[in-house]
């Protein structure tokens, strides 16, 4: 009797478990089906449907989205957008947690997508989905944004203090390792800033270029320590001069109040020159001065307000003709559009910058080594303080 009961219980539990799994999968598919992310809907159709939905919740790493929100709410009376302004690592964690707990707390995410984290933890796991209607997709520049979700290009780049120097005082990246720049270089902590992580990661993929640049700088061969590569040698040396910060804003402030000679931060901060901040962009440097970073806008899986989300994303892209107000806050100095029919905010084309690009898959592969290397550097810098 006992054995039969045990077997029966096991069968029942298995059945229950399977039903649960299937139900979950079915719910997922139902969401995708209902979301109809491939459907071609006009803004008016979406607006009518959106009016029956709730407040749109957007997790964003960009404070400029507040201006898009304002004009969106004015353009579409009755719709409300709530912004949660967070840093990229926190954004990814929040989306993951929402999914684990079944919270439908997020509809749209706007995040830097170059560190590999966004791809690995959200895109590849289906926690976020791109939405790119055909009338907008038709205008995308060739080769931009592999997953079709990047809506903006920026660079993580080196700046000099233009209040102190008339022009960039260095020609070779290795000059930053010199003693005279001790404590005079500011840079966000790469473990907390995706764009900085992407720059560091991309530089790790440029060992040959860095070795050649070192030869041009010193006339000698770079000699890394055992187990270390040339890129790690560069960063270990330059880290002795770096003050790590929490954000690009602190870098901008340090350049402007005279505390820094150089700083690494996102190029969109160039817009702050309007307010009197003294950032001089380093367009040319041996072997590179900047790394391309892009920002994705995507719909969160299980979004409860899909129509409002679609309408908001269309609006952010500047609508079908690219002339909508939604993209205006992002048409500023240091920003490049992903659309061929929308003029860049940046005054210098990307082709005129000594740029490197990050290979995200390679970065994901080397994540453990990268994180270990940078954890050591940051801990060491904390001890120095």
């Amino acid at each position, binding site marked *: 009797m006992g054995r039969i009961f045990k077997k029966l219980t096991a069968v029942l539990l298995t059945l229950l478990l399977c039903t649960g799994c299937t139900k979950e999968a079915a719910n997922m598919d139902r969401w995708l089906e209902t979301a109809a992310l491939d459907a071609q809907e006009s803004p008016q159709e979406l607006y009518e449907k959106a009016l029956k939905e709730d407040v749109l919740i957007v997790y964003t790493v960009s*404070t400029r989205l*507040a201006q898009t*929100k*304002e004009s969106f709410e004015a353009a579409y009376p009755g719709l409300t957008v709530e*912004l*949660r*302004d*967070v*840093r*990229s*690592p*926190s954004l990814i964690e929040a989306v993951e947690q929402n999914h684990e707990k079944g919270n439908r707390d997020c509809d749209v995410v706007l995040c830097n997508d170059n560190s590999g984290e966004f791809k690995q933890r959200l895109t590849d796991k289906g926690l976020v989905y791109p939405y790119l209607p055909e009338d907008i997709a038709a205008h995308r520049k060739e080769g931009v944004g592999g997953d079709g979700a990047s809506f903006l290009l920026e660079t993580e780049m080196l700046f000099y203090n233009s209040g102190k120097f008339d022009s960039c005082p260095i020609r070779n990246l290795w000059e930053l390792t010199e003693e005279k720049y001790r404590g005079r270089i500011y840079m966000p*902590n790469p*473990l*907390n800033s995706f764009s900085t992580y992407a720059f560091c990661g991309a530089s790790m993929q440029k060992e040959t270029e860095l070795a050649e640049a070192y030869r041009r700088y010193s006339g000698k061969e770079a000699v890394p320590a055992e187990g270390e590569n040339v890129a790690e040698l560069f960063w270990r040396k330059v880290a002795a001069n770096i*003050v*790590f*910060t*929490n*954000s690009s*804003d*602190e870098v901008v*402030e340090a350049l402007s*109040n005279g505390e820094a000679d150089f700083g690494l931060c996102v190029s969109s901060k160039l817009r702050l020159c*309007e*307010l*009197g*901040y003294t950032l001089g962009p380093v367009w040319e440097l041996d072997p590179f001065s900047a790394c391309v970073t892009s920002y994705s806008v995507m719909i969160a899986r299980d979004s409860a307000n899909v129509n409002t989300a679609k309408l908001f994303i269309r609006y952010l892209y500047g609508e079908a003709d690219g002339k909508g107000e939604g993209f205006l806050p992002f048409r500023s100095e240091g920003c490049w559009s992903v659309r061929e029919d929308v003029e860049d905010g940046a005054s210098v084309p990307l082709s005129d910058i000594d740029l490197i690009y990050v290979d995200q898959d390679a970065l994901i592969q080397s994540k453990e080594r990268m994180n270990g290397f*940078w*954890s050591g550097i*940051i*801990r060491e810098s*904390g*001890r120095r*303080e």
Partner: protein
Amino acid sequence: MRKAGLVLLVWMLIFAGGCGTTPRPSVLHVAMPVSDKIQDVDSNYYINWLEEKTGLELEITMIRQRSSGEYLEALFSSDADIDVVLFGDSFTVQEEELEKYAEQICPVGDALCYYNNAGSRLSGAGQILWINSGWLKKLGLTIPSTTEELREVLRAFRDGDPNGNGLADEIPLAGIRGSYASSPTEFLLNSFVYNDPYHSRYGVNGEAETLMAETEAFREGLAFVHGLYAEGLLDEGCSARSQRQLCELVNSPVDLVGAFTTASVSDVIYPGNPEILARYVYAPPLRGSEGVCNALYTENRPRVGAIITGRSPRKEEAALLLDTMCGEEASLIARYGERGVDWDYSDGTDVSVYEGPSTIVTKNYLWNTLQNKHLNGIGPMDVPLRYREGVTWNGVNSDTEYVDGHARMAYEKYLPEPGRFHEENAVLSACMDEWIGDFVSGRKDVGSDAEWEEYLKSLQQFY
């Protein structure tokens, strides 16, 4: 036999019942001020943690009086059964004020009759100027670095309709006279002479005996501020305006305010308003006509956190509670919330807001927000300095500790070396405050030698 069995069963039930009864915890009657930053005291995480840690049952009585003096008078003249009184929020008391209740307050240790609250804020820059960056951009202006540049910016704010509603409703520079930190006058005077209203406007260190408010430079500063007031650039004359009203103006969706000063943005900008917070950037201390540029140093000394009433029959239990609250574990909850959920210890790979080694990583920044994890600074605590200085940013742009922190760091180089300060002279300060208000608003003429002499004579009565 059946009867015997029944008796046995009854005895067993009684015995079992007795075994199951745990001793009832001592009930401690705690009074604390009402706070709009705490959701529900009964389910508050910190209160529950304290109950578990001490084995006490805390019965909380909410204090609705704003004045601690009035409350203590009423408490000690009644037979209310209160063991512990917690202070904090706007319900504060000075050590000297407690002296008159010495007989009604239980002594702690040798002399102290209260438990300290140390750890709410760091010492350092106590007043920051925040300016509307949206208006600057719209009008093609840069962040001012001198008092003259500020005047030009404020004129543009007044005349350029930067909020774009077609109405001349912009307030270029808003403030109130009731709070030194929220008074732009106090900020601007620091561009002419070191102006420390918290120490009765005496100098610091070598000048600690010099009353700066008597100097010609101070007078020049007042004339400058009056000039702003006369041009309608400074809106600080309304002595009736409260901090709450200033908050309403700054947080208005109509975008009414061009600039304001405060010790912490969280004192003015409501939590959960990233759009409003994003409007404002800090401006560094301004240089005056003679190149003077100071930042106001504020020493955040420990304040009274709690007392045990003299007539409490549960003094030991009360001491257990307050000693526990002053411990490191409790203090970290009292400041940052639940460990593992709202904060955790840093593994050293983060960067502190204050540029030192990181010690605390905040996950949910709760301070000065409506929450139910701690008492938002009410009661005693003692957060070690290494934690206060080592707190890191949680990545949320509206984390006010971060916003304040990097503004304060930028002001640091304009602060005086912390050293010898003059004792505050309350009557002298009150006299000066009144005169300053009159000079700024034009009720008295700062340009008149006779009225300036009258002012100086008034001050001399009090020192």
